[in-house]
Every structure is written in C-alpha cells, then in structure tokens.
C-alpha cells in the first residue's frame, strides 16, 4: 500500500517528457513495404520500356475516332452551324452540353491535386498526376465546343480584348465573356500546375536515360532540376501556393460556367442554386472519370501497390457524397419551383420530368443519384469491375444532366407559340464522339512519355522519407 503511495509521490517529471502518444498506425499508402528504388523503377519503367503492342492498337483506334471531330468541324465551318441540330428555340444544342460535360470532367484533377493537398490528404499522391493530365486534356476537349459553336468562328478573336481599327470592344456583362477568361485561365493554370509538378520526375528520367534523344528531350523539359534541397524548398512553397490558387479557381470556373444558364432569364435556368449544384456535379463527374481511367491503368501496369484498395475506397466515397449532393440539388430545384409560385418556373420543371424529354431526365436521375448509392456497400467498393461500370454510368448521367438543363428549358419556354423540339444530327454525334478519341490520344501519349505518378511525392509519403525514421520500425 504505502510503497505504492510513495512511488506516486516522487514521480520523476522526466518520465512524462519521455512519454509519447502511441503512433496511430493507418493503412500504408504504398503496400508490401516497397523501397524508394522500387518506386523509381516502377514508374520510370513504364516510360522506359519498349512500347507495348496494345498501346499501338489503342493509339491508332483513338486517332481514327479523333478524326471524326476534325471532319465534323471542317464541315461545320465550311457550311454553317445549320449542319448541327440547333434551331429556334433551341439555339444551343449539343455543343454547349458537351462543353459543360468536358469542363466538368476537368474538375477532378485540380480538385485532387489542389484541394486534397490543402486538406493534407496524403493518399492523393499516387493519383493526382494522372488526374491532372485528365484535367488538362478534358479542358482542351471542352474548349473546342464554345469556340466552334459560334456562327463566324473566324471572328472569334473579337471575344478577346484586342485593340482594333473598329475601335469597339468586348462586352463584359456577358457570361460568355466571363467564360473566355475563366476557361482560358483554368486551362493555363492547370497546365502550369501539372508541368511544375512533373519537373523533378522528368529530371529523374533524364538522369536514368540511356538513349540520347531521351537525354535531350527530358533534359530540356526538366529545366536542369537538381534535386537540391534549396530547389525543393521553393518548389514545395510554389506547389502549395498553386494548390491554394487552384482551389478557388476550380470552384469559380464551374460557377461561371453555370452562370451561362443562371444569368439568363429563362424558366429552369434562372436559379441561384446553379453554382454549387454545378460544382458538385463537376466533382462528381470528374471522380467518375478518374475511376474510369485509373482502374484499367492500375491493372495494365500492375500498380496495385501504389493505387491501393484504400484509394479506390476513398474515391468511391467522394463519388457517393457528391452524387448525393447532386441528387439534393435536383430535388431542391423542384421544391423552389413549386415554392416560388411562378407558373412558368414550375412548368419548366414539371416539363423536365414528364415533358417530351422525360427519358433524358430519368436517365440522368438513375445514373447520377441512384447508381452511386451502391457505394454505401463495402462489397461493391471492393469489386473493382463493378466500380468501373458504375463510374461509366456516372459519366453518362452527367452528360444527360447538361442535356436536360440546356434543352428542356429552351424547347418549352415562355410563349407556347414558339415551343419546339430539338434533336441532334449525325454531325453533332460524330463531332462529340470524336472528342473522346482526341482525349484518348492525348492520354495515351501522356502515359507513354510522361511519368504518370509523381515519384517524389509518392516517396514523401513513404516511411523512408521520415528524417526521424520513427516509422522505420
């Protein structure tokens, strides 16, 4: 009894100092205790080994599909916008739908690399490079449509504030003018972000290169990076700042895209909910696309140790969350339409669900709201093929969302006398299909010639990177 008492009395404070809270062991982000060299080998290997045959097949196929867009656009420009299905009242057909669709997809990349970076989500490291690439390419695809949907594309430069002998300027009240700035900024910053992140990895490839062309190619690209701590210091700061800049950017871009509709005065467009609703949708579709792209890559290149089940789990959960937000937005629209007691507004929404485009609406709902709900179940999240299929559904659903928004409203707005029905032409369809080819071409080139994971960042989250070696068991 007493001994115990005394012991407690004369407790040595130094002991307290020694006491450390037990480290919280979470799932390793790189499995099977791989070492740094393995990572380098794995990722550089993809770039350095000789081109696999399947790559060639995919590449050629993608090129063919991409040519659809090329042909479609040549026909469009030479002949007139009439070759598309657009008409009065539906003056914006697929073009704008596709634009919003691609821009939306473009959002996941920046989100993963920027927002998750700010939120200190370490698991992002193995997927952010690929999804940034996806962003850049998606934005390029998106850019095609607003540019070419105009009637006189050769005058599109009038949208930019360039001095001219007509002494007339752009009109900055127009959401389309805002788009010009938003989209071009987004494209530029995404590219900068993507490229800057790649510099150290390019340097690694440069240093490992055997063939001269590689030496020079990656040499030039890597800007003479030297892995010096001083470099790392500024690099990390710059990376953090770009992340900080990209976060408001990524939110603003889709907000502004949503203004194209929200600022108009049409029933079903003129709603304040659009910005958050569009951003959520964008993230949703973006993550859908990330899954669609990464799951095949993972198995093709055997990246299971780097893109772990944990990663897939997280992405699924985000998809589920955003999918649910989108669902909420849908229902809220209806509520407000009813609550606003504006007959034009309420009709617009009744017409969406039950009017002549009802099928589009219900495809949208079932793909975007219902299918992601499956991700509540661990079993399904673990079943990679199923996850992949659901991600495809998400993509389809989000395209239809834009279709529903853009077309149902236009086809039946204020005056019943000018109600109409829109249906696309073959040119619409091929031009859009072609952009997937275009996207694939770029993405294939990317996985062939550029490091598809940020090695340095992956290494950072490995135990070997810890200077105190505490995790170094």
């Amino acid at each position, binding site marked *: 009894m007493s001994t115990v008492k005394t012991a407690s009395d004369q407790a040595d404070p130094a002991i307290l100092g020694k006491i450390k809270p037990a480290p919280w062991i979470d799932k390793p982000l790189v499995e099977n205790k791989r070492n740094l060299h393995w990572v380098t080998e794995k990722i550089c290997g993809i770039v350095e080994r000789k081109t696999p045959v399947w790559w060639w097949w995919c590449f050629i196929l993608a090129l063919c599909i991409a040519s659809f867009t090329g042909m479609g656009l040549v026909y469009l420009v030479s002949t007139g916008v009439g070759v598309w299905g657009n008409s009065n009242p539906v003056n914006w057909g697929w073009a704008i739908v596709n634009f919003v669709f691609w821009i939306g997809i473009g959002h996941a990349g920046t989100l993963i690399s920027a927002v998750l970076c700010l939120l200190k989500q370490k698991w992002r490291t193995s997927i952010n490079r690929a999804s940034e690439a996806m962003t850049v390419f998606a934005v390029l695809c998106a850019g095609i449509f607003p540019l070419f949907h105009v009637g006189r594309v050769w005058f599109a430069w009038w949208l930019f504030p360039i001095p001219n*002998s*007509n*002494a*007339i300027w752009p009109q900055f009240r127009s959401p389309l003018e805002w788009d010009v700035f938003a989209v071009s900024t987004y494209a530029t910053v995404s590219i900068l972000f993507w490229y800057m992140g790649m510099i150290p990895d390019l340097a690694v490839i440069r*240093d490992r290169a055997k063939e001269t062309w590689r*030496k020079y190619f990656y*040499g030039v690209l890597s800007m*003479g990076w030297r892995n010096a701590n001083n470099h790392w210091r500024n690099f990390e700061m710059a990376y953090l700042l770009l992340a900080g800049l990209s976060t408001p950017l990524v939110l603003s871009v889709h907000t502004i895209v949503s203004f194209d509709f929200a600022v108009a005065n049409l029933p079903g467009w003129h709603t304040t909910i659009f910005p958050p609703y569009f951003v959520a949708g964008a993230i949703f579709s973006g993550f859908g696309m990330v899954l669609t792209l990464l799951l095949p890559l993972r198995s093709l290149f055997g990246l299971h140790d780097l893109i772990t089940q944990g990663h897939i789990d997280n992405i699924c959960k985000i998809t589920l969350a955003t999918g649910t937000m989108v669902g909420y937005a849908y229902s809220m629209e209806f509520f407000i339409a009813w609550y606003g007691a504006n007959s034009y507004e309420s009709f617009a929404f009744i017409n969406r669900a039950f009017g002549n485009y009802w099928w589009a609406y219900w495809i949208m709902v079932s793909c975007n709201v219902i299918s992601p709900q499956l991700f509540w179940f661990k079993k399904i999240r673990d079943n990679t093929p199923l996850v992949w299929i659901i991600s495809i559904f998400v993509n389809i659903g989000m395209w239809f969302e834009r279709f529903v928004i853009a077309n149902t409203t236009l086809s039946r707005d204020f005056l019943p006398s000018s109600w109409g029905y829109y249906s696309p032409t073959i040119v619409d369809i091929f031009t859009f299909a072609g952009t997937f080819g275009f996207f694939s071409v770029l993405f294939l080139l990317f996985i062939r010639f550029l490091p598809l994971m940020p090695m340095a960042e992956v290494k950072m989250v490995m135990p070997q990177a810890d200077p105190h070696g505490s995790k170094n068991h």
Partner: protein
Amino acid sequence: MKNIFPRWINTVPIKLILSFGLLGGGIVAGITYYATPKYTRVGYQPTQPVPYDHSFHAGQLGLDCRYCHHGVEKSSHSNIPSANVCMSCHKNVKANSPLLEVVRQSYYGEDKDRDGQLSENEDLNGDGVITAGPSVPWVRIHKAPDYVYFNHAIHVNRGISCVECHGRIDQMEVVHHAKHLSMSFCLECHRNPEKALRPNSEVTNLAWTIASGSHSVSQSEVDLEQIHAGLEIKENWGINPPLSCTGCHR
C-alpha cells in the same frame, strides 16, 4: 554521369525569352502598321481611263465640287458625273483631244456622225432614241463596306467638308485615298465634330480653315479657334452625331 548540355546552354533560355519578346513585339507592331486601313487604304491611287486632273479643274479653274457631283447634297450617294456633264464644256474646249475620246463615245453613242440627229442607219437597236454609248469605266477609289450606310447629304448639309474624308482633292493631279476611313476614323469625328464643323458656304472650299478669316498664326491657335467655332456651330445647329450602331449599320 556527365553533363548532357554544354556550359553555354545556361545563357540560352534568357536569350530565347528576350528574342521571343522582341519578335512578338515586332509582329504586333507590323500588324498594327501594315494590316490596318491606315496603311492598306491610304494612298490607293489607280490610273483612271481619262486622266482627269482635279488639281486643275477644282484647284485652278475653281469648279465647285457640286458642278459634277451634283447628287451629293440631296442623296446618300455622291454621284460620278455622266459624260454629258463633261461634254457641256468639252464640246468646245479640247473638242478633239484624243484623251477625251472615251467620253465622247459614251456621250454620242448611237449618234455616230455626232450631229445630234438620229438618222435611220444609226438607230441600231431600233428604239428611235439616241442610246448612249459605253460608260466611261472610272475606277472606284473610296468604298465603304456594303454594311456601312454613309450618307453624303447629311454630312455636306450640316457643315462637314469634303476635305474631312477625301483630303485636298483640289491639289491632287491624280486622286488617291487620303484618309483611312475605318470605323475608328468615323467615331473620332462623331465624338468631336467641333474639330470639323464649318459654315455651309465653306463646305466645298477645301482650302478653307478658320484661320483664313482671322490673324491667328500658330497651328495650335488655329485648332483652338476652330474648336471654339465648332462648338458654337454644334450648339446652335443642334448637331449630335450618332455613336451607336444604328447610325451607320442597318
């Protein structure tokens, strides 16, 4: 490993940046100078079928512009004189000058013997009237695009002189395009008409300046005086040139 690139490479990037900057600047400057109406239009001086000398007729002889371009005060369009206008003098003056043959053909037309009578054998198309001959193919110099509706009458009647857009025609032996006449040119004057406004009587007097009446000496003083006078005219005549699209585009 060894250095891939030689040492001198390190200065290349900065050189590149600089040279690209210069190149870009050069291109912009080039376009601004060579590819704008200021350059492409001004100075256009085609050779005309008849070497009509404005500096002689309008300058030395002091013919009023409206003697030939008689439509200018009534119409949106300032007409080119028809052959009979020329012939009203040149029946007597330089009656047989070979230079005027084109005009004479156009004037007499079917009337081959040029006696003013239409004899049987002359009436080729058999319509019983002297049909005029082929037109004199004057080459157009000033041309506004088809979607621009410039109206001569309103300008000439409201104190804007020919000289403002056409320059000193009365000093041109062969007429050339004097001003660039791009939209910015129009706007410039529509924004500050006072710089151009003058009394009606002086509209076709291309030599006129506000100074001709007064004793002002330096250019700046003249300009100042012009602006004062112009503002007064603007005020009293209720001049307010349109600055919106509908003024010129329909």
